[in-house]
């Protein structure tokens, strides 16, 4: 039996589906966070050069990856909303922005914490650090622009343009360590392989999965509120059991 995926792009269907999925994603995220932290702090060995400070990487790297991917997903949804005028796409883009901004903030914060003992400074205007800071400002700009326009559909269109134009910053962040002579190190994990200890890899990938699941859960929860807010004048919202209470 073929599944009609377009059915789930309607807020009416997606609202219920998201509600059912949130506990699964949230519970899995909590479990994976616990496992990742255990491996990261108790199983992974101390690094020969960086000592214990390298353990910041288990949150810094997933937060950085999430901040970039979430921006691309947000821009993708914004573009879909702009091109096809679909209601849910714009709502999803609006729901992703705060989570993406928080991951960018965590990335910058943990990076500074690692930089102090390793580089001797909390911050420097390195290409990777500066482009990540611009990513945080793009997220904040998207949120501020959307909030400053009263009409939601006009706000969606204006913010979508900013998101699409800003997406050019993501490849700049990723390739900054190759294009410029930066202090920030390049990728340790490549398609050709890695020299990382297996326990370090396990901690890193478990934390990455946990961050993904957390982000999905929290974005789905936020988009449900946005759907409620925007569709409040419809009969299907009035008929919801949580509204009838």
């Amino acid at each position, binding site marked *: 039996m073929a599944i009609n995926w377009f059915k789930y792009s309607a807020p009416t269907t997606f609202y219920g589906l998201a509600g059912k999925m949130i506990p699964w994603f949230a519970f899995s995220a909590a479990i994976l966070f616990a496992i990742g932290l255990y491996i990261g702090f108790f199983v992974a060995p101390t690094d020969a050069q960086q000592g*214990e*400070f390298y353990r910041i990487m288990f949150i810094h790297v997933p937060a950085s990856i999430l901040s970039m991917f979430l921006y691309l997903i947000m821009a993708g949804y914004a573009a879909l909303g702009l091109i096809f005028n679909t209601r849910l796409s714009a709502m999803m883009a609006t729901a992703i922005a705060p989570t993406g901004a928080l991951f960018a903030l*965590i990335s910058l914060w*943990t990076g500074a*914490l690692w930089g102090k003992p390793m580089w001797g400074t909390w911050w420097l205007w390195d290409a990777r650090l500066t482009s990540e800071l611009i990513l945080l400002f793009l997220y904040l700009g998207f949120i501020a622009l959307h909030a400053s326009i009263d009409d939601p559909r006009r706000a969606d269109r204006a913010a979508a343009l900013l998101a699409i134009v800003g997406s050019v910053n993501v490849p700049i962040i990723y390739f900054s360590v190759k294009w410029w002579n930066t202090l920030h190190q390049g990728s340790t994990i490549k398609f050709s392989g890695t020299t990382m200890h297996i326990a370090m890899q396990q901690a890193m990938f478990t934390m990455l999965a946990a961050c993904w699941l*957390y982000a999905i859960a929290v974005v789905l929860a936020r988009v449900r509120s946005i759907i409620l807010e925007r569709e*409040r004048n419809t009969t299907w919202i009035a008929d919801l059991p949580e509204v009838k*209470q």
Partner: protein
Amino acid sequence: MISLDIWMRENPLTYVWFGSYAVALLIFAIEIAMVKHKRKITLQQVRLMRNAGDDARDEGIA
């Protein structure tokens, strides 16, 4: 600043745990609380609108 440098080198795990992981978990906790609060407020507004609509309909019928 020098005392912080000395402290972080003497207590690297405390520095790593409280500086990065505790802060990240606190940020996640604040975000979850904000999302829950937003849902609560939105549901209250929708219920109020629904009740106001019902009252207006009842008065119209009366």
